[in-house]
């Protein structure tokens, strides 16, 4: 990647712009954990040598480290998807009590519409819960500029600042004018126990935080980036973030109060604005965060969630429908025989071999967050529950306690390091009879192949001490540990069978890499082929759910897609699938 130079105007995605903003703001340290739609922020930041950037083992760890850097007097940033803030919430709620020394910005990337997420959650409420000011960009230019504003705000009031982006801002491109980096002089941490030992001095700090928030509330009344765009029509609009762009498309003549800071809200500015109009549209994606506050303040001439949906992503159409009662465009796609195209495990994915063995075992499988969530889809149908990072192991323990026979927790290598270690300790400690399968594909797959401690590489691709997962689980106290090759079905199934029969905690580690893991791309494969004369058309090869096995009168193997993993060969009882050249 070539980094843009100052003064250049570049087409940039929101996440790249945030990274550029961090660079320009003189950020010294950036940490985070991968998660769509936030991942690229840290990946791009890692290209700037001036910033020390790193993946944390999870969002809480990343948060605490960035928080430490900020307390030490330098600008620090932590980046995560919105559910990551659930993980980091403990620190996020308490740090504001003390405030910060150097600027500290917490990036939360929301995913309205759940394009790549397990739930829909409006993280603006986190800002209110933590009593932390929050800034929200609408497009890539603002995505860049607002990073600097966030740091200025953080240092002005000695507070963490939440920077809320969303999928549409992070993954949309627009023109950005690039600026220079300004180095920020480091500040000094002063040993002041009554400020920094929060639990002991919480009561006093609570009052200080309240007073600070009152000062910020006053400040935002005149904040220049909360701006009014005067229009010619009699319609008023209050909006922020991505919703602003939809409002401008649908109501180009309206007078718009565009909020940059959405917590705390500028009370008097909002009340005065609403008083100018008969009716004001509050156009905000997801929950009625602004609207509730307005109604609490006694403003009644607003149109909000009585007309606008409170779930799903907004678009210009969603706004048009709410404002004009516009009928949706005639959708003739219903006349077509449309077949869904869900994402699926790639040809050559090692998870497929694990799922085939699990399916055969008849076990109840508690899943976790990663590509292997897709094991729930037919024909594998071998992942039976999935919620959030690290939940699989505790859930499997619980199913066992609840009386379910044959339970397996499955969890990827990155997810295990993120949130699986402590539950495994708990399983051993509390005498669980739980089987945990660690699907070690040597990368963080679903978010686009990031490194983590067990890959032995840093964010920048430099060698790091590699966390040995087998040694780790043994050290935790798991005595029954097997390493199995998921492309060898006999070995894989017998490992599952043995672990399930074993009384006590057991771990199975799979040992084949993701086809996109470092060093795997560009590997030459010998594909398999179907011998038409031996094929009985029994369909067994298609029941492994590989996109490389193409349906037809006689099934065929897509030679371009095939990685030669041999799972289809092992599924064929008639010897009709052979390695190309061996026929």
């Amino acid at each position, binding site marked *: 990647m070539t980094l843009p130079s100052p003064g250049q105007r570049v087409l940039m995605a929101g996440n790249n712009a945030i990274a550029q903003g961090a660079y320009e703001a003189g950020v010294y340290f950036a940490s985070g954990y991968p998660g769509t739609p936030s991942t690229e922020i840290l990946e791009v930041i890692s290209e700037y040598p001036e910033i020390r950037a790193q993946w944390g083992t999870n969002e809480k760890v990343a948060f605490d480290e960035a928080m430490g850097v900020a307390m030490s007097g330098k600008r620090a940033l932590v980046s995560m998807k919105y559910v990551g803030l659930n993980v980091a919430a403990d620190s996020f709620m308490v740090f504001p009590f003390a405030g910060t020394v150097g600027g500290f910005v917490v990036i939360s990337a929301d995913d309205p519409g759940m*394009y*790549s997420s397990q739930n829909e959650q409006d993280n603006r409420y986190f800002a209110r819960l933590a009593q932390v000011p929050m800034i929200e960009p609408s497009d890539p230019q603002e995505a860049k500029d607002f990073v600097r504003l966030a740091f200025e705000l953080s240092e002005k009031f000695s507070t963490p600042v939440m920077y809320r982006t969303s999928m549409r801002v992070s993954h949309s491109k627009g023109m950005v004018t690039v600026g220079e980096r300004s180095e920020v002089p480091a500040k000094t941490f002063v040993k002041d126990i009554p400020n920094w030992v929060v639990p002991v001095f919480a009561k006093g700090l609570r009052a200080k935080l309240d007073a600070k928030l009152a000062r910020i509330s006053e400040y935002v009344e005149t904040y220049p980036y909360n701006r009014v765009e005067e229009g010619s029509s009699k319609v008023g609009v209050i909006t922020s973030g991505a919703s602003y762009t939809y409002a401008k498309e649908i109501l180009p003549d309206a007078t718009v109060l565009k909020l940059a800071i959405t917590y705390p809200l500028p009370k008097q500015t909002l009340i005065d604005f609403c008083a100018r109009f008969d009716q004001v549209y509050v156009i905000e994606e997801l929950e009625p965060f602004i609207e509730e506050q307005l109604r609490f303040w006694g403003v009644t001439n607003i149109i909000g969630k009585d007309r606008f949906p409170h779930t799903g992503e907004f678009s210009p159409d969603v706004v048009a429908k709410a404002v004009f009662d516009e009928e949706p465009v005639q959708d003739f796609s219903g006349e077509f025989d*449309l077949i869904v*195209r869900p994402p699926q495990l790639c040809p050559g994915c090692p998870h497929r071999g694990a799922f085939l063995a699990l399916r055969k075992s008849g076990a109840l499988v508690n899943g976790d967050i990663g590509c292997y969530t897709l094991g729930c889809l037919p024909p594998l149908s071998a992942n039976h529950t999935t919620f959030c990072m690290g939940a699989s192991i505790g859930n499997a323990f619980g199913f066992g306690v609840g009386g379910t026979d044959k339970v397996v927790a499955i969890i990827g290598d990155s997810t295990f390091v993120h949130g699986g270690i402590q539950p495994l300790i708990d399983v051993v400690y509390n005498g669980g009879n739980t089987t945990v399968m660690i699907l070690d594909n040597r990368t963080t797959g*679903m978010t686009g192949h990031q490194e983590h401690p067990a890959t032995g590489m840093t964010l920048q691709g430099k060698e790091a001490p590699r966390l040995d997962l087998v040694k780790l689980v043994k050290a935790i106290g798991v005595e029954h540990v097997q390493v199995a090759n998921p492309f060898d079905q006999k070995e894989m199934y017998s490992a599952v069978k043995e672990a399930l029969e074993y009384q006590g905690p057991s771990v199975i580690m799979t040992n084949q890499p993701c086809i996109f893991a470092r060093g795997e791309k560009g590997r030459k494969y010998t594909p398999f082929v179907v011998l038409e004369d031996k094929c009985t058309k029994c369909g067994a090869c298609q029941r492994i759910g590989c996109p490389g096995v193409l349906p037809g009168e006689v099934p065929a193997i897509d030679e371009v897609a095939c990685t030669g993993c041999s799972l289809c060969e092992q599924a064929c009882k008639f010897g009709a699938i052979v390695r190309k050249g061996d026929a």
Partner: protein
Amino acid sequence: MSGVTNILLVGVGGQGTILASKILCYAALDQGYQVKMSEIHGMAQRGGSVVTQVRMGDQVFSPVIDPGEADMIVAFEQLEAYRWTHFLKPGGVLIVNDQKIVPLPVLIGAAAYPGSVLADLEQKVSRFVALPALNLATEAGNSKSTNVVLMGALARFMNFPQEVWQKALEEKIPAKLLEVNRRAFEAGYNWQA
């Protein structure tokens, strides 16, 4: 939303819609348009249905294209053309690569790939082009240039000068693959049924 051209690129994760959109955006910027572009990352990229939205004009706020709003749709795969055609404006252009990529339900025998996609679409859309982009790319020297063949086909319906497209190819494609992709672009541009 007058004065803004909306283009959708739809396909299957891994087909190269993102590189195609980069070429398109580069050309549009070179023509002096404001450009907004939006794409899907994450889980859907694992062989799922993907869409890239490109909007260009004098002033563009939203990066999002709604149903019935696209001036042009380039479908990298037949079934994806089926899925997204209702995003086309009346009178809009639909360009379809006649390639079929089997989705999971067909793969496991739970559904059959529809047989009449191209005929059905031709009925619905007056400005309709279907082309064998994969074959054209293979003939040009690299099956992976299918996306560039489709950009060539799109270029016929856009009023950008040829030099702009050539410059975009030079900017966005590695030098050693440039010649193949130039041929692929030309094959798409000149293709006639």
